């Protein structure tokens, strides 16, 4: 009985911890992104709120919370209100299966540093990332605005195209780890991370997650210059905030997935596993920001061509080759 209670307590603690860490990480990612981009453009970025602008996320939060929550007259009200929540929620849920450290020994118990170690964690991730698109699609549709609708349609087709490549690029990982459980996958990379073992899969996955996170150069669903704000044109206040935060959470989650699947998860010398994990995720986030600072947005047809005519065949080919090599090694 007490054991179960302790288990429950531990899970709750983990939940709260992870929740807090991810949310504040997302918040500060926004700040980091603005500052890094600013420096890349020879600016300072936000530096007025708190020392060095450290309180900027708080300021933003207050601003977003106090802004008018505006629903367009012709919008589908319920869907309109629901969509941002959906988008943030699916992003958060994904984290449940991600192992962020080696199992700990507390009170004589082995506590896995993952909220829920599903044995089909990978499928869960793929499933949820497909659901994530609903937030955007519903939001864009419910706004009843041409820009929002166009943004949503772009987002949908973009996600469908890149999810295929993403899914196919994980197949070699599964084949190499011989498991769908993410923990197992991490354990399989104790010696050499899969990124080195199978660089094509790593690259395809990397590109796909950039597309999945709707960031430059794949930010067509939002593309301010042509669609005003894309699917969230009509959103304001905290509802816009949810979309916004959802995106950055997504960035963390996708970074974590990349770490788990290809960079060996928490494994690394000298430092504790959790620290290694965070370092790797942050590095990937920096990479995301760096890409944003350096690349222009793709044209829509280029995006589609690239997805269907380059990435997908490459991913398929990679699956075949990996399979062949694995068979050959025995």
């Amino acid at each position, binding site marked *: 009985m007490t054991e179960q209670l302790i288990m429950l307590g531990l899970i709750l603690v983990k939940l709260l911890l992870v929740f807090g860490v991810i949310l504040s990480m997302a918040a500060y990612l926004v700040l980091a992104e603005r500052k890094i981009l600013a420096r890349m453009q020879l*600016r300072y970025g936000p530096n007025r709120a708190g020392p060095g602008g450290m309180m900027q996320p708080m300021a933003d939060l207050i601003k977003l919370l106090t802004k008018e929550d505006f629903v367009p007259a012709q919008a589908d009200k319920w869907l309109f209100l629901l969509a941002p929540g959906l988008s943030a929620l699916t992003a958060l849920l994904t984290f449940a299966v991600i192992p962020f450290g080696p199992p700990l020994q507390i009170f004589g118990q082995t506590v896995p540093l993952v909220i829920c170690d599903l044995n089909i964690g990978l499928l869960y991730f793929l499933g949820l990332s497909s659901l994530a698109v609903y937030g955007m699609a519903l939001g864009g549709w419910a706004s009843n605005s041409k820009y929002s609708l166009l943004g949503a349609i772009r987002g949908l087709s973009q996600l469908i195209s890149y999810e295929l490549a993403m899914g196919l690029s994980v197949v070699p990982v599964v084949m190499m780890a011989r498991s769908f459980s993410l923990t197992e996958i991490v354990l399989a990379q104790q010696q050499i991370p899969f990124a080195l073992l199978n660089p094509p899969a790593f690259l395809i996955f990397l590109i796909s997650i950039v597309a999945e996170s709707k960031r430059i150069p794949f930010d067509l669903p939002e593309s301010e210059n042509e669609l005003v704000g894309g699917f969230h044109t009509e959103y304001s206040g905290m509802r816009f905030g949810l979309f916004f935060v959802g995106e950055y959470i997504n960035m963390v989650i996708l970074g974590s997935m990349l770490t788990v699947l290809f960079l060996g998860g928490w494994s690394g010398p000298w430092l504790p596993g959790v620290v290694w994990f965070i370092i790797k995720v942050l590095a990937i986030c920096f990479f995301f920001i760096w890409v944003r600072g350096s690349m222009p947005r793709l044209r829509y047809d280029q995006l589609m061509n690239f997805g269907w005519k380059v990435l997908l065949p490459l991913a398929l080919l990679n699956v075949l080759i990996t399979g062949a090599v694995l068979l050959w090694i025995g």
Partner: protein
Amino acid sequence: MPLLRDIKGSFQPFWVTLRNMFRKPVTVQYPEQRPELPERYRARLILTRDPDGAERCVACYLCSAACPVDCISLQAAEAEDGRRYAAWFRLNFARCIFCGLCTEACPTLAIQVTADFELAGRDPLKLVYEKEDLLVDHCGRQPDYNFYRQTGIGVTAPRGGNPGESPPVDVKDLLP
């Protein structure tokens, strides 16, 4: 070779941005640091006076016609002595883009720019300047032009009394 060029083109920006990250930003830290403005900087507009101290503006409506954002409105009126002046003159700085076209259109050099750019405020109505807010008591950047001394109409001098004018003709004179 285009492929090589493309690959190079895809990676070079990463290097450029990375390098820039370690350079010193060019941002001027206003308000602690004051910007150094060029001599002919265009900001808040004023209505100046002529060297005699009278209002220069003759309410000709040219500035309001020239203004691309239509932020000047005014009404002309006639004073006792025949001087044409602006009964009211309203400039909406909330709309002004400080392009300076009004000053270029002004035939009397009345409306001029100054370098005072610190106009921001929380109440847009405070940015709507009336004539009394715009009128200053100096000549601005153009110290020595007096429109009424160049025209044939008798406001500052009797008719025909300005430089370059001959006295009024006698219309009943039939001498050759």
